[in-house]
């Protein structure tokens, strides 16, 4: 898994290219992810990268930008 793959996944989930242009964008503040989007994100992470993130480990403050998500996933690989 590399940064690019994470960004591609987020572009598909959020349906917005802005993620590639600005990987420090706050996905929750900008309305690109909501509670249901979060769920889809965790499912996709498991499907694509075989990394299981327990929903109870997911908090919005630490998983709010594409770069942070990529960083969190790199830690868990």
């Amino acid at each position, binding site marked *: 898994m590399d940064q690019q793959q994470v960004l591609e996944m987020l572009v598909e989930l959020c*349906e917005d290219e802005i993620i590639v242009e600005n990987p420090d964008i706050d996905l929750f503040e900008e309305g690109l992810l909501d509670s249901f989007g*979060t769920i889809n994100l965790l499912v996709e992470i498991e499907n694509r990268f075989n990394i299981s993130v327990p929903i*109870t480990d997911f908090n919005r403050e630490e998983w709010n930008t594409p770069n942070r998500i990529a960083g969190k996933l790199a830690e868990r690989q």
Partner: protein
Amino acid sequence: MLSILAAIERVAIQQPQKTAYQTHNASLTYSELWHLSDRLADYLMKFNLRRQQPIVIYGHMSPLQIVAFIGAVKAGHPYVPVDSSTPSERLQLITEASGAGLVLTTELLQMQMNIPVMAVHDILDASSKNVILSSATWVQDEDIHYIIYTSGSTGQPKGVQITASNLTHFVMWMQEHFPLQEDGVFLNQAPYSFDLSVMDLYPALVGGHTLYAITQQEIANPKALFDSLATSNTRVWTSTPSFAKMCLMNKEWDQKLMPALDTFLFCGEVLPIAVCNELMLRFPQAIIYNLYGPTETTVAVSYVKVTKELVARFEQLPIAPITEPNVSVAEDGEIIISGPTVSAGYLGAPKLTAKAFPIVDGDRIYQTGDIGYVQDGYLFFSGRKDFQVKLHGYRLEIEEIEKQISNLPPVSSCVVVPVYKEKEIISLSAHIVLHEPLTDGAFKTTKQLKALLSAYLPAYMIPKTFKYMDALPLNPNGKIDRKGLAVMETV
């Protein structure tokens, strides 16, 4: 006939110290509920409102919110629940359209209103402690008990008026058909702006049970949510299927985490079979019910019990057995609802009411706009006659969203289409023509438009993606090509 208020009073006398309502950090006994709502009602009656004039109640899950509902109807006024996540312009619109004489708040409301605004807390502080209220002022029979605003295709939300008699019939129906008698905790997940909340609220209070309410803040923070669910001791679960689907993402959400859970009541949108299969595995003690009904006929009017046999037999769950007396299908496929829970119509909208609620053989019926078909003794839901959609359990009129976007100063015209994934709507996409060509870049413009829109529409009604076009695509008949756009939006 049972009176909702008389039934709650009986509970308050018989088990005054029992918890009526609880959140993760606050609770209320039946005795407190009864006496505080008496004090509130006593104060409200001195306020010189018109008879049956609505009272807007603004707030979120909290004990005083329930006190406010019961206090309003004790004083003879229907209440209009408005969740504190509602944008200011929409609150203003609902307040004006309802003709409310007062806004009661249980959370801080910062905007200026044209009618008096009072905090429930302040009223209780100022009110006399020794009030004995007679039942003479209570809403009853054909008086309106609550008014819930739903999305309206004209661009104006519609106020559905539910009478005391509608509500009583609904609660009696719930008690007759579902295992609600045995003592236990009822989960309250839906905010009070949505009538799904009525499904747990009144059956629990009338039965003398404890309601456990979870807040939107907990839902946004999964750890807090599951901690709360684990300590709630919930026996009866009411939610949209979307919410359960979200919870299923946590692999630890199961019978071990919620040992008392034995009843699932689902309503508000299609219940997917995959969700039922997973729930049956994780909650072997629980029975799942799929309920059906629009706000206009008081929450729900029919149901099926979800069994292994049923999920194996059909690709989609039915919404009613054909023996259900109050639900039928017209020749054109539209689902028609009759019976004692059909609402008194839309407040202040006689034309809309006459159209949706025709009188047949002296009785008011409701034309749901839902399309259904009958197969093997069951009724199935297959879609809508109009542009209403359900997204994560929220009922939305696409036309209302389009009107609000088109009203924004930079926008010339707009079409909104649902985005489908595996036959399920996952989001909305707006196709927009601007007056001036894009100068700031699409992202900045979208951000600006979404910010403008958030004063008028709740977050769940704001499309996720905005696409800019020079002109909206037309089909060969010269109409906007919604079908073409919808095909583009299937992922």
